C-alpha cells in the first residue's frame, strides 16, 4: 500500500518540468511573504503531452503534483478540486512562461480555443508566480 501511494505521489512528465521551474520560489523570501495567505490549486495541462501539472500554493509554499490527462474526466474540477484551469500546447506554454505572449495574445488564443482557461482570477495568481521568477530574492 505504501509503495503504491509512493507511486501515486511521484510526479511525471510535464509536471516534472513545472516542478523544476516553480519550486525554487520556495527559496524566495519575498514570494513567501507575498503569497503567505494564498491557498489555491491550479491545473496546468499541456494538451500535447500525457500528464498535467497540479500546482498547489499552500500559504506561500509551492508544490506540484501530476495526473494523467487522459481520460478527460481525470481533469474535471469535481475530481481534482482545482480553482483554475489552463490548457494549451507546450509551445504556447513556453511563449507565455517566457513572456513572449501578451495578455491580448492569450485572449486571442482563448477565442480560437488554442488556449482553454477557467477561473481567470485565480489564473492571475499563476501569472504573478511566473513574474516572481524574475523578481529579486532579497
Amino acid at each position, binding site marked *: 500500500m505504501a509503495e503504491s501511494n509512493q507511486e501515486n505521489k511521484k510526479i511525471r512528465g510535464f509536471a516534472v*518540468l513545472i516542478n*523544476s*521551474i516553480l519550486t525554487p520560489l520556495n527559496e524566495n523570501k519575498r514570494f513567501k511573504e507575498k503569497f503567505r495567505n494564498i491557498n489555491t490549486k491550479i491545473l496546468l495541462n499541456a494538451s500535447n503531452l500525457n500528464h498535467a501539472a497540479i500546482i498547489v500554493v499552500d500559504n506561500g509554499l509551492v508544490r506540484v503534483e501530476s495526473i494523467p490527462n487522459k481520460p478527460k474526466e481525470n481533469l474535471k474540477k469535481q475530481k481534482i478540486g482545482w480553482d483554475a484551469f489552463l490548457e494549451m500546447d507546450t*509551445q504556447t506554454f*513556453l*511563449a507565455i*512562461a*517566457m*513572456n*513572449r505572449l501578451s495578455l491580448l495574445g492569450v485572449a486571442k488564443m482563448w477565442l480560437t480555443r488554442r488556449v482553454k482557461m477557467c477561473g481567470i482570477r485565480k489564473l492571475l495568481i499563476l501569472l504573478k508566480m*511566473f513574474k516572481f*521568477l*524574475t*523578481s*529579486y*530574492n*532579497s
Partner: protein
Amino acid sequence: MVLEKDIFKEFEDIVGKGNIDDSEVITNVYAYNWCMEIFNYMEGKEPIPFSPIPKAVVLPSTTEEVQKLVMLCNKYGISCKIQSTGLGPWNQPSNENCIIFDMRRMNKIIKIDEKNFFAVIEPYVSGAQLEVEVMKYGLLPHNPGAGPQVSPLASATSMNGPGFTSPYTGHSARNVLGVEWVLPDGEIMKLGSYGLKNNPDWFHGDGPGPSLRGIMRGWAGTKSGLGVFTKVAVKLFPYPCSTDFNVKGSSPNYDFDIPDFMKLYVMDCGNFKKLENVMLGVEEEEISFMCSYLSGFAVMAIFSNSIESLMNKIAIGQMKAPIVIIITARTKREFAYKQKVMDLILKNFKIKNIIGKIYTPNPIFYAEALRSNLGLHGFIATGGFQSSKGVADTAAVCFRSTKSNIPLKKEFIKKKAIVNDFGEGTWMTSYESGHYFHMESPTMFDQTEESSVKGMAEYMEKSNQLDLLKHLGAPFFVEGTRMHELFGPYMSNYHLWLRKIKETFDPNNISDSGFYISP
C-alpha cells in the same frame, strides 16, 4: 576514385609510409561533416552529410613536405583541400579530384614571445592548447566562438573569427602577424617581418611592401582556396585575471574557483534601442572582457549543459533584450574601477543585474567564458545548429539585421523547419571595445530530419537575400562562386578582384575553390 598507384607512390615518398591513405573507408570518413547536408541541398544535391569523396588523405609533417605535396598536385592537376581540426562544411572538397591535407601532424607551438605578445603556431595546435601554454606567461590568445578545440591558425588565416572574448581579444583577421604560406604553385611566401632577409621575426604582419594580409584572408578567409598556411604568428593579450584555473569535481558538473576579480552581469534592456545604447555605452568605456547580446533562449543555454537544465531556466528566458557582460581585472584597484563604471552605467540606464539576485550560474560558467567554450552550448537543443547572417559593421546595422531577421525566422518556425526561439536567436558582440560589431543568427535545426534540413537551407538563402535587399552587410556564407557572384555586384564588384587574385596566385586552380571563388 583512387589515386593511380604510381601517383600514390610519389605522394607517399614525400610524407612517408602510413601517412597517406586512399582507401574507401578513410576517404569516406573524411567526406562527412556537420551541416554538409544543408550545403548539399543548396546546390541541388541530396541533403546528406557527405561531400564529394576525396581521392586520398595525406598527413604532412613539415612545410617542406607541404610544398612538395602542392607541387605534386600541380603536376597531376589534382586539387587539395586543407583541414586542421576540421569542424564545418568549409573543410570539405568540392569535387572528387581532390586530396585532403590533414594537418594533424603539424602541431607545434614554435615560439611564445611573451615580451612582444605573440605566439607562432602550426595548424593543429588547438585553441585550448595554445591558451594553457601562453597562460604560463600571463597571456591569452583569441579563440573563435567555435570553441577551444579548433585551430587558431585556421581561424586566423582562413576563416571568419568572431569570439566571445572579442571585445578584449578582437577578431581573428586582426590578430594575424607573420605568416608562412605555401602558395598554390608551391612557392613559400613569408608575410610581414617574417619575410625580412636579415633577422626575420614574426612580430609584424604587413609588408614588406604591399600588405598581402588582405589577399591572404581578407574579411572571411579563403577556406583553403588559396594555398596552405603552415605557420602563423597570432597576437596575444594580457590574461584578463588571475591565471589560477582550478577546475574541480567530475564531468559534467564541474566546479571552479572563480577568480577574485571577475564579475558577470546579465541585464534585461527591455528593447533593442536601449540594448544598443547600453552596449555602446559599455564598450565606449573599454572595460569588458565579454559583452554580448544573446537571445533569451541563448542566455538560458550558456548556463546549461543539457536541454533539460535549459528548460528549467525559463525565468531568465523571460528577458526580452538581455546583455551579458563579464568584467575582469588583474588588480583590486582595476576591478574596483570597472565595477564603479558598470554601476554608473546600470544606474544611468536603469537596468539591473540579475546575477546573484534572480539567478546565480554554476561557477563552471566562468571557466567556460575564459576558455571560449560557450559557443558549443548552441548544440544542446537539437544537436544541430548553424548561423545565418554574420554581419560585421556598426552596432546600428547589427541591430537592424537582428530586427529584420525576426519575421523571416518566424516564417520558418511556423513551417516547423527550425526551432522556435521566437525569431530572436542572435549573438552579437563587439570587436575591440566597440570598434565595430558582429552579429549572427544561430539557428537550431534537426540534421536528421530532411524537412528541417531543407527548411534551414531555405531560411539561410532567404536570409542572404534579405541582407542584399535591406543592405545589411555581407553575411558569413558569402563564399563559393555562386554567392560571390550574387553579392559582388552590390559590393564594388569585389568578386572580380577576388577572381583575379585566384587566377594570379593559383593558375592551375589547385587549391579547392569550393568555398572561395573559381577562376
